[in-house]
Each structure stands twice: as structure tokens, then as C-alpha cells.
């Protein structure tokens, strides 16, 4: 349960987690699959790239340790405060993932599985993944990512005859307000910043390589997905709520009339992995800020179970989801992980050097 992972495995997990949020949009979300989607994607990734820079500098300076662990080495009080903040955000991120997975499963080919089945089986798989540890989960992420690539190839090949390039046209600068709103919304879905910050100390060397790999791969995948939406659905794209699922529903590979079953399998696995990685990040935070040893492992298992179980709360109390959504898109995670924690870590590191 306490192993380390390679940077490639972590990058694959983060990329899968990022693409998962694109493919499993919730109905209340302001994500619009309009023509500005390309620009939104590029801009949000540029912001994400910029946001990672201070974090990467802090990680590099500390020789690969996570910034939280550097802060924890200097001040227990400060790290405790940061630990609580990050844990709450991770919990919201995990609950949102659980909600997305459930919504996705209940609105797609898995609608035959009752809620109880969903929570019991997904929960069992999640606890199993958390129990098996970071290393096993990140290796699984690489395999699921390979499955996603295969799915995209299948969809592309199946839909090749209906792709019309003339459906692409630039309308990006027509409505700057929408563009801004979309970009900020897109970026706010980026919980991977939190996960990376917590887990960067658990990467076998070269942890900084995770970020460019993850950002590059996710951006490319999102662009390809967007390209497919527009070239297949054209002006109808903004009307779709789950465009990638719809895309797979109209794919026919002869052997299967529709391949949305495979699509659903991939995203359910990706959802479980995203939850598992949130649990691993939580475990690291607990370990650095509160307690070490077996208690952190148990806390991760409890976190995983609670986050999936309480995802249903978002459905029962929509206002709770609004609070979580506002909190996550307020820029607080960005401020915390891109500015406050790296700055504190750098300051603590500098202070320690001076002290020694």
C-alpha cells in the first residue's frame, strides 16, 4: 500500500482523470460544447501549465519531496491548517467524481444496474484499488489509458465516413464573456493539481516530468475528442450533454452495432481510478500533516468509502453541490496549490537552509 510509482503511471492517471471530467459532464454544469471549445481547452491548459510552475519549482528545490511535507517539517500547526483545507477540497473532488460516475452510469448503457449495485460494486472495486496501493493503481491507469486510446481509434475508424471537415470554423472571438466563463469552468475541473501536489513525493525520481506529460497528453486527447464532436455532429454539438458517449453510440464496428458499452466501461474504470487517486492524495496529506503508519492507510480507505457513499448527498441536497462547485471554481484550489503552498514550501526550505 505504501509503494512509489513511476512518473509515466502518475501522468497516465492524471490524464485519465482529466479526460474523465470532459466525458462525463453533469447536467447542471455550464460546460458548453460549442465551437469555442478548442480555444477553451488550449487556454485552460495554458493556465494549468502556468499554475504548475511554482509547484514544480518547489518540488525541484526540495529534491522531489512534496511541498506539504516540507511545510510539515517546519510547522505542525501550519501544515495541519493546510492539511484540513486540502483534505476538504479533495473530499469535494472525490464526491463530485462519485456523482459524475453515478450520473454517467445511470444515464448510459449501465442504466440497468440499480443504484445499490453501482455503489456496492464500485465501492468494492475502489476499496480494492486503494488497498492494493498507488503503484498498482497507476499501472492500472496505464492499461485503462491504452483502452481509451483503442476506443478513440475505434470510434475514429467507425465514424470516418461521416466526418466533414467543413463543419469546423472559427467563431472563437465572437463572445469573449462566454469564452472566459468556459475557460474558468474548464480549469476549475482540474483537481489533478491537488492530487499531483500531494503525490509528487511518491514518484520514483523525475517527478517533475509528470506534469508536461500529463498536460500534453490530456490536451491532445481533448482536442481529438472535440475534433470528433464537431466533424461528426457539426452545429448539433452544443445540444449534446454527453458528447463522447453519443459519439460511441453512433459508431458501428460491424461486430458491435454500438460501442457505447466499451465507452461506458472505460469511464467507469476511469472514475474509480480518479476516486482512488484522490484517496491516495488524502492519505499523503494525512501522513504528512497528521499521523503516520497504518492510521493513514485506514484513513484512505475510510475516505474512499465516505466520498463515494456521500456522492449521493449531492443528488439529495443540490445546494451542497452548488457550494462545492462554487468553492472549487472560486480559484481557491488554484490559489492554494499554485501560490500559497509552493511559496510556503520555498520559504520553509530557505529558512531551513539558513538554520543549518
Amino acid at each position, binding site marked *: 500500500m505504501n509503494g512509489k510509482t513511476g512518473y*509515466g503511471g502518475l501522468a497516465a492517471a492524471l490524464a485519465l482523470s482529466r479526460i474523465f471530467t470532459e466525458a462525463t459532464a453533469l447536467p447542471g454544469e455550464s460546460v458548453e460544447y460549442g465551437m469555442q471549445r478548442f480555444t477553451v481547452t488550449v487556454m485552460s491548459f495554458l493556465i494549468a501549465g502556468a499554475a504548475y510552475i511554482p509547484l514544480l519549482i518547489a518540488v525541484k528545490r526540495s529534491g522531489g519531496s512534496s511541498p506539504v511535507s516540507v511545510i510539515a517539517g517546519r510547522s505542525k500547526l501550519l501544515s495541519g491548517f493546510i492539511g484540513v483545507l486540502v483534505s476538504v477540497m479533495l473530499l469535494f473532488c472525490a464526491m463530485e467524481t462519485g456523482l459524475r460516475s453515478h450520473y454517467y452510469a445511470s444515464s448510459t448503457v*449501465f442504466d440497468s444496474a440499480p443504484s445499490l449495485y453501482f455503489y456496492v460494486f464500485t465501492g468494492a472495486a475502489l476499496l480494492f484499488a486503494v488497498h*492494493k496501493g498507488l*503503484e498498482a493503481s497507476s*499501472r492500472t491507469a496505464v492499461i485503462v489509458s491504452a483502452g481509451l486510446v483503442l476506443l478513440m481509434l475505434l470510434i475514429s475508424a467507425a465514424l470516418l465516413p461521416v466526418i466533414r471537415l467543413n463543419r469546423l470554423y472559427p467563431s472563437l472571438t465572437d463572445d469573449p464573456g462566454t469564452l472566459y466563463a468556459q475557460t474558468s469552468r474548464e480549469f476549475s475541473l482540474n483537481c489533478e493539481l491537488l492530487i499531483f501536489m500531494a503525490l509528487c513525493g511518491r514518484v520514483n525520481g523525475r517527478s517533475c516530468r509528470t506534469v508536461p506529460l500529463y498536460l500534453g497528453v490530456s490536451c491532445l486527447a481533448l482536442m481529438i475528442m472535440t475534433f470528433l464532436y464537431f466533424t461528426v455532429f457539426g452545429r448539433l454539438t452544443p445540444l449534446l450533454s454527453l458528447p463522447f458517449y453519443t459519439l460511441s453510440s453512433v459508431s458501428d464496428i460491424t461486430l458491435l452495432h454500438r460501442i457505447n*458499452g466499451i465507452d*461506458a466501461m472505460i469511464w467507469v*474504470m476511469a472514475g474509480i481510478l480518479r476516486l482512488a487517486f484522490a484517496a491516495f492524495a488524502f492519505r499523503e496529506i494525512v501522513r504528512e500533516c497528521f499521523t503516520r503508519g497504518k492510521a493513514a492507510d485506514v484513513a484512505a480507505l475510510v475516505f474512499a468509502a465516505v466520498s463515494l457513499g456521500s456522492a449521493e448527498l449531492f443528488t439529495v441536497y443540490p445546494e451542497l453541490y452548488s457550494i462545492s462547485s462554487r468553492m472549487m471554481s472560486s480559484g481557491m484550489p488554484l490559489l492554494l496549490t499554485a501560490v500559497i503552498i509552493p511559496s510556503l514550501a520555498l520559504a520553509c526550505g530557505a529558512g531551513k537552509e539558513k538554520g543549518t
Partner: protein
Amino acid sequence: MLVEDLTGNIVNIRAVMKNSSDLILKYAKVCGIEVCVLSCDGQTDANKLANLVYRPLSELGTDGGDMTPGRLAAMISGELLIACDGKSVCSAEDVVNAIMNGFCVILVNGFDAGYAVGVQGFQTRSVTQPENHRNIRGAREGFVEALHTNMSLVRRRVRSPELTFTAMTVGKTSKTEICVCRMESADKALTDKVIRQLETLPLSLILESGYIQPFLEKKHPLFSAVGATERPDVFVSKLYEGRVGILVDGSPFALYLPKLFAENFMMLDDYTEKPLLALFVRLIRWAAFLIAIFLPGFYAALANFHPELIPDALLRNLAAAESLTPYSILTECVILDIFYEIMREAGLRLPSNVGHAVSIVGGIVIGDIVVSAGLVGAPMLLAVAIASISGYIVSDIGEQVSFLRFGFILAGGLFGLFGLTVAAFMLCVSVCSLDSYGVPFTSPLSPFSRKSMRDLLTRSGWIALSRSEPDIYDMNGVDRQRDER
């Protein structure tokens, strides 16, 4: 310890052997001194014993003159006996160990040590083609039960000091000889760790290499990160990649570690074919593995829960076939799979001539009758049959494939694609969690290694492969220092 009194020594040795009836004692008077030759029935070669021991002793004559026991013993060990293997023994336990291993021991009255001469000659099976790992091109030699024959089969393929053997005896009761083999390129820490683990084996009886396998691997309910092969050429190629091999006396299966999951899809023939053909065959094997474990479960899931995913024309045919059968899809699938497993198990244990009869009864009689009697649908029979035949392609993990297929039938049949997804995810996590001495079982797929791709799904040509030495540790995310489990 042995004493100068021959009678006392014999009494001690008999006591150690609990008066076992296979102890053979031959008394003789040599140069006026009483001598006893001890051997174990069935462990020695009578001709060797006669030519190498009895004849030289008899040529010394019975008259002693001024011969002393010490001088006679020195003459026997130093001048008289010509044998490739000889050693002094100083205790009753050493004497018993030696004779159990095919030596004969000569004890001289009045001298407190014996001399053991290697005259091994037990019956062994000759080197034949392996039963389980057949190939089209390449050697027709397989390992046999005798350790020394197996060692020679390995040495004949690597006539270089880079290959070293470390002999050991394990098993408190069986005292089985084993041999740890490694090339110079193998990780020293890995070899030392394997030797340490073998030295501390808690087993009393070791009859097969499979007995020691669990002590060398991480616990996993299905897969093993220790490989077993009957082929010396495969074994040598694994050693060349930096792995550690273990030969066990009495077993024709040699062990090597660490083993990777992807190796289940690689055969020796891949390296004798053109790379393009090797690529094709390897892809077929991967596809066969996926078909073998998923197809019946996938079919049950689609037919039960998601018929909209099946093409219309096919769906109509399937519906027509299934409407004639009395059982649910899941029940049909489970019954057929259990039938198949029963026939497979019966076919495995039966003599080959009876095995053919089982195949005919199973394949033609049951297969045909169950469909024509309307007990199961033909599409379901087809799905299970294709899956079963596909399972034979990856014979090294045939048992695991059968088990997984059954699990996926239940998951898909009871909970549809959702159940199949969760089961596949858990299998994936479980397999990914396995590693052996720091090498992930799923590498080089995950963690991904671009360099290793030249010999994974595809197989580069020999010119490209020969540019760098193969190394099991040469993979992304694998650290040679990380051998602590």
C-alpha cells in the same frame, strides 16, 4: 564421528539408517585387514562398482605383510581407486548421505574415516521432446528428472564461464539437490536473495520444483511471477536476460525468476520466424487470451442486458436460437463451461488412447446432442467453444484462464457490462499489484518501456535486437536497487 572399530561403525551406520533393508554391506579382507564396502541398493551402477572398487581392492590380495590400516586407507584414497568423484567421510551421517546419493563408502578396520567413491547409476529417463512446450523449429530436447543431465543441457548451450551453477541441498527429509543458475549479468543481490530463501526453506520433502515456487514469489491468488519451463533453450535465454534459474533434482521443470505477464505470449518460434509473422502470431495470442476470458461473459452480458449493442441481423439469429432453449442465458453458459472443464480435466488425466474417446464423446456427441435436443443454443455453444480453444493458445496460464472465464461469466450474466467492468478492473489492479524482486509483473506494458517494445507485441529483427544486450531490469520505473520485497 567414525571410530577405528569397523563393527562399531557399522552398528552406528545401521542405527542412522534405522536398519533399512536397502543398505548393502560387502566385507572383504584386503592386505590382511578387514574392509567393508557400503552402498545403497538401486543407487549405484553394478559395473562401475565392480570395475572401480571391487576389482582394484581384490588385486591387492588378502595377505597383509606389514600393511597398516592407515596406509591401506591412504592407498585406497590416493593411489588405488580411479573415480571421477571421491571424498573422505568422517561421520556416520556423512556415510549415509554419501550412499544415499549413489556413492559407495569403503571403511577400513582400524581407521577412523571412510572414503566415498562416486558410482552413481540409477535409472533415468532419456532426453526427449518436452510434452508441454512444443515448438516447430529449434531443439527437440527437454529437461529430464536427473539434475546433472539438466545441468549439462544448460552448459552445452552456454560454454562460457559467464554461466555459473551453485549447488545446494534442500529439504530436511528428502535432501533434494537443487542448482541455482545465473549469468554474470544477473543481479547479484537478486541471486543472493534467492539463495538465502532457498537455504531457509521450511519444507521437509521436495518432490517437484512447484514445491519451492511459492516460497520465491509474492502471494497472489492467480498468477505467479516465477516461470517454469521444460525447455533448456528457453531457460538459457531467460538466464541471458539477467534472470536467476533453479534446477531441481527430480523435476523436468526448471524455474526462472522474475517472470513477466507478457512472456506468456512469447514462444521460441517467434524468434525463428520473420518479424512480421511473429507480430501477427503474437497479436493472435493476445486476442486469444482476451477472447478466452471475456467472450462467454461478454456474450451473456450483451444478450441478457444490452441487446441493443448487437447488430440487428445477428440479434435476430441469436434470439431465434435462444427462444428454443428452456434455460436462461447465464444458466446455459455456466452449464456449458462446467461441462467443458469436466471434459478437459478428464482428458488431461486419462491415457492418450482413452483421451481421444473422451474428445469424441465430448465434442461430437454432447456438443451436437445438447443443441439438437434444445438444451442450449448453438450461439452459446459456439461462444464457449471458441473461448475454450482460445485458452489453449496460452497454455502456460490455462488454469487461470479457465477460472477467470467462469468469473466473468458470472459477472456478465448477473450484472451485465457493469459487472464485467468492475470485475475486469479488479483483475487489472490485482495483476498490476504483483511484482517479483522489484520487477513489476505487468512491465514493460505498465510501467511502460519504449525500449522493451522491440520485443513485446512486435519482435524486431535480429539485427536490431543484437544492438544491445537484453536485460530484464532495463525498464522504465524499475530500479535494480529496489529488490526488497
